[in-house]
């Protein structure tokens, strides 16, 4: 490094050396203005760097960045942060955006919570009494005991979202809930980040390629993810690919920042992306661009489906001693169905066959691909153009381009997932990738990269401690999905008798639950009055803290003594270490939980009151992904790549190479689903259904029916309402940081509309206006830009309670729960996925 630094300043040094020589060329007209003498003011700037110390740590917001920073500390005060340039793979250097650059402004924020506080007067009234930590712990413990005795301890509900951001500090919430038998909130599905199409098709939580794999793609469709705005540390993988000649396509209703950084922007009507994907599938099939081997060997394509029931044909259907779990394919030579063998290229991919059942009846069975082909007939480019607004010739061209480039990748973002039918849209996109053989190959895939859900180690022993060493019994929390906390139970809720209860205590740690929850109107009106205790450990007075009963000061990330963090965006596990001593009376989350456990008599199970031992336990019991990664190594190296089967990591390479089966019941990628509820709703195969709310046509209906109907809500509320992620915040984090807010236009919430749409309502730029619907309203100034299509309003979100003049940007949203999302309940893997983009409103001048 020394040599290279010298090389770098060589120019400067040689210039100094040459300084005394007379210049030969040209006359220095203003030479007298640059005498080469000491300039003391320059030294003042040089000297500001003297005495600085650097601590390498990580910022822990839920943005998937997981970016390392060198925190520069002088006299115990953070001066600034700089990217450390220490990711072993240089492609990941530098990471970190302007929000990370200014985290220390939040550490020193005027809104910092400095000591424990107890509410005085009504909730949200802003009157607090300072109490001691002991008073706080005693009060919380006695309230929890009272609530547990009165309603049951599972009504105490802990909400420690996104544990991968800080596995120890957020995981401590899981552990706290588990050792005390409390309730536990889910978040990945409730946020709307879980692509339910993944568990449906592959029976995995989510699988995506490593970001670096974008370098291997020949064609990339960025589908409903404003990468330039929301994935800053990794967006360059796409812009780099484009500089090297790879075509980038962005599909979105809005002319977003990403639309300006790609080769082609496709404006699609909101919520109809599934139809576009199926239209592209149609073209791929008609043009003979299908990768039949991929379909035959790895997907549910050749599996036989009974035409009478819609169910997969099983071995037990045809023979008394048949396996009820064995899927069947047709053996043409033998003229009868046989048990499926994964990766076989023998069975026919298409065809309908008469099959004799064990009771002697004959039923027609078709391969599932045959059914899919029949269904695709409805999605000709002309019809799809009618649905989506994308010209038919563009649909044709995009399909051919995508299918002809090998490998081609799709970034399937949350923009197409935050819908009531987000699972169908996701499945349609996956079907397109399967048809073209783009699954399981480097440079291909369907990657969501949404939400920092991925812990790259198995945290079970830390989260849910074993009751006895060596035995499988664990302490367990009782999950309750956050969607039900906010919306109440549904008729179709999975495991309702066991799981549903009205919760009475909310402990929201590391997530601004009350500020960010969709369906604010319900939450405030119906849910909060039922809650008898709200505990909010916070660094700043967030909306949740403002509405809480007890606010506890927790350490900021720079005061956190130790933690570990991972993300789906890059393959590294990183060490978080303290750059500062805890400020004011702040304590770590783990210490707070421990102290409360002490008062509940469970501290001997909870055990940890400092993060270091927990990090050690996590790494030791974390399984193969972190084998060989010890605490000592992590302390030394700070950032270590976890053990992954390939580099850059691509999902399903083993499966698609035939070395392993998929984790589904059939062992194949299941484009066809036969659970009763899929059949009931006609969703065995990916299908386009109109949005549940945000459509002028028949809501939730397939196009044939939908186009004949009108949505009564749309007559009253003709604008699609989207509250969206902005570059200026990670949800509500940084929304009150003045350095950042100052750069966000005029630094306040803005209703963004098309100028023509605003003109219809007599609204000019900068006017106050109210967006409202049947659920609630928000008042804000109006910004006009052509980026927003007609019939839509966008508000960039995250504003705290005190920053909004009236109402709330989430007051208009309401999530009806899709029964398909309730077929199973597996916390954060299969549960209600928020469809908060599926909403309408009207805007009037305020």
């Amino acid at each position, binding site marked *: 490094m020394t040599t*290279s*630094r010298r*090389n*770098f*300043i060589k*120019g*400067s040094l*040689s*210039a100094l050396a040459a*300084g005394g020589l007379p*210049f030969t060329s*040209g*006359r*220095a*007209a203003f*030479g007298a*203005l*640059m005498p080469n003498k000491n*300039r003391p*003011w*320059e030294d003042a700037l*040089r000297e500001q*760097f003297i005495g600085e110390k650097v601590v390498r740590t990580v910022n822990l917001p839920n943005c998937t960045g997981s970016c390392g920073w060198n925190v520069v500390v002088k006299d115990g005060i953070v001066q600034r942060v*700089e*990217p450390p*340039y220490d990711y072993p793979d*240089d492609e990941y*250097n*530098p990471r*970190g*955006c*302007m929000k990370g*650059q*200014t985290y*220390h402004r939040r550490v020193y924020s005027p809104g910092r919570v400095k000591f424990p506080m107890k509410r005085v007067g009504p909730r949200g009234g802003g009157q607090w009494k300072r109490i001691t930590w002991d008073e706080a712990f005693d009060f919380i413990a006695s309230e929890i005991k009272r609530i547990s005795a009165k309603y049951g301890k599972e009504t105490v509900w802990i909400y420690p979202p996104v544990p991968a951001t800080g596995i120890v500090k957020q995981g401590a919430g899981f552990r706290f809930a588990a050792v005390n038998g409390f309730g536990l909130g889910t978040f990945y599905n409730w946020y709307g980040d879980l692509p339910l199409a993944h568990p449906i098709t592959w029976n995995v939580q989510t699988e995506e390629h490593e970001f670096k794999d974008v370098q291997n793609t020949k064609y990339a469709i960025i589908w409903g993810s404003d990468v330039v*705005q929301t994935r*800053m540390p990794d967006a*360059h993988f796409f812009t*780099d690919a*484009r*500089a*090297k000649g790879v075509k980038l396509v962005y599909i979105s209703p809005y*002319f*977003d*920042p990403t*639309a*300006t*950084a790609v080769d082609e922007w496709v404006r699609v009507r909101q919520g109809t992306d599934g139809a576009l994907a199926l239209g592209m599938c149609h073209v791929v099939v008609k043009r003979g661009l299908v990768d039949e081997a991929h379909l035959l060997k790895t997907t549910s394509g050749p599996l036989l489906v009974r035409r009478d029931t819609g169910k997969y044909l099983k071995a037990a259907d045809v023979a008394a001693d048949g396996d009820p779990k064995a899927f069947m394919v047709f053996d043409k030579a033998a003229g009868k169905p046989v048990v499926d063998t994964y990766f076989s290229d023998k069975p026919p991919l298409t065809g309908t066959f008469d099959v004799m059942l064990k009771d002697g009846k004959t039923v027609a069975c078709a391969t599932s691909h045959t059914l899919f082909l029949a269904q695709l007939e409805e999605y000709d480019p002309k019809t799809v153009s009618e649905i989506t607004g994308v010209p038919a010739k563009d649909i044709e061209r995009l399909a051919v381009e995508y299918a002809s480039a090998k490998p081609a990748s799709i970034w399937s973002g949350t923009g197409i997932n935050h819908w009531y039918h987000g699972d169908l849209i996701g499945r349609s996109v996956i079907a397109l990738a399967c048809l073209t053989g783009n699954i399981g190959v480097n440079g291909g895939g369907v990657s969501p990269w949404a939400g920092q859900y991925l812990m790259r180690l198995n945290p079970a022993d830390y989260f849910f401690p074993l009751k006895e060493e060596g035995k499988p019994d664990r302490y367990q929390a009782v999950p309750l999905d956050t969607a039900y906390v906010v919306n109440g139970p549904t008729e179709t809720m999975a495991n309702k008798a066991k799981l549903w209860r009205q919760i009475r205590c909310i402990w929201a740690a590391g997530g601004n639950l009350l500020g960010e929850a969709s369906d604010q109107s319900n939450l405030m009106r119906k849910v909060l009055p039922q809650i008898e205790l709200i505990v909010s450990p916070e660094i700043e007075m967030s909306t949740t803290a403002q509405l809480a009963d007890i606010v506890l000061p927790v350490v900021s990330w720079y005061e956190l003594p130790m933690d570990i963090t991972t993300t789906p965006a890059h393959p590294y596990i990183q060490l978080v270490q303290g750059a500062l001593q805890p400020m004011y009376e702040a304590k770590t989350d783990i210490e707070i939980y421990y102290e409360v456990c002490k008062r509940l008599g469970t501290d001997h199970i909870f055990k940890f009151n400092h993060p270091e031992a927990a990090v050690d336990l996590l790494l030791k019991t974390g399984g193969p992904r972190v084998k060989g990664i010890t605490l000592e190594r992590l302390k030394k190296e700070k950032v270590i790549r976890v053990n992954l089967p390939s580099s850059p990591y691509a999902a399903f390479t083993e499966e698609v190479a035939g070395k392993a089966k998929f984790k589904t019941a059939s062992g194949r990628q299941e484009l066809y689903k036969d659970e009763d509820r899929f059949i009931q709703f006609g969703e065995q195969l990916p299908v386009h259904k109109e949005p549940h709310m945000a459509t002028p046509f028949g809501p939730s209906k397939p196009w044939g029916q939908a186009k004949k109907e009108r949505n009564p809500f749309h007559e009253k509320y003709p604008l699609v309402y989207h509250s969206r992620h902005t*570059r200026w915040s990670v949800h509500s984090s940084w929304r009150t940081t003045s*350095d950042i807010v*100052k*750069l966000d*236009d*005029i*630094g306040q919430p803005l209703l963004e509309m098309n100028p023509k749409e605003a003109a219809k309502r007599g609204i000019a*730029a*900068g006017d106050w206006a109210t967006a409202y619907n049947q659920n609630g309203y928000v008042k804000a100034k109006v*910004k*006009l830009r052509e*980026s927003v299509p007609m019939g839509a309003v966008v508000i960039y979100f995250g504003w705290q309670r005190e920053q909004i003049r009236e109402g709330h940007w989430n007051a208009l949203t309401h999530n009806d729960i899709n029964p398909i999302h309730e077929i199973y309940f597996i916390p954060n893997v299969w549960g209600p996925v928020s469809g908060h983009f599926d909403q309408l409103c009207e805007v009037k001048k305020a």
Partner: protein
Amino acid sequence: MSEELWQKYYGKPNPKYGNRVQYGMLIDINKCLGCHSCTMACKQTWTSGPGQEDIYFNSVSTQPYGKYPRHEGDPKDSSKYDYRHSNLYQDTPKGEYPNLWQFYLARPCNHCADPACIPACPTRSIYKNQDGIVLIDQDKCEGFQYCVKACPYDKIYYNSVTKKSQKCIFCFPLLEKGQEPQCVKSCVGKIRVFGNLMDPESAISKLIRDPSLGAKPYTPEVGLKATHRVINPIEPRQYRPDFGTVPSVWYVPPRNVPPEEVEKYFGYAMSGLVEEPNPVPANLKMKDI
């Protein structure tokens, strides 16, 4: 840029100031995320002091409507410049669907080869150092603000608390420590290349002379990994070269913008015309901010 043009600008020591080194920057607009990481890295390092609330040595604004500072009233009257809301009209494109365009324009001081600020300074506080970096001596500056008026790029700021004019210093104290400027180091979109324009072997001058090198792996100028970037293979240009000061910051112009508009920003088409292109149309003007 042709070899001849490079020779003309950088092949010999600066004819006026004699510097044999001219540090400069190449910014690929096509890759800019508009994230302001550069702005914030700069601000946290240099302009978080008194009177610097609205001073951004490096600013980013969405073109065509984003201006910083905005010129209200008489465009020549710098006392009316509005430095608030440096990122007003962010992501507001021009045109009508489907023909919309916008781009992010990141602007540090251009450290011009022939700066307008130096001769304008009545106290002779501004100088171009041996590295071609233009600096305002804060001990000598008396705050006359002639430089603020003279700089066609509006990149000199008057600090009303210290009563001095201030500007980007290309992070010279960090350069001396072998580091790149903060805006380059922190650029998470990896759009900036920094180096000595007068060194024919530097990555930046090679890239400016042969844009095709950008998209290929090239040898970084230094061991600092930061300089190893992928740059769109398009001929780099200067922003508003028609101002005549020979800026040392070069841009890879945006691909997704109509060529005639690119010309307004990065070409000579506007020669002699000093008004900003594309004023904000009345219906988009934010009232009472």
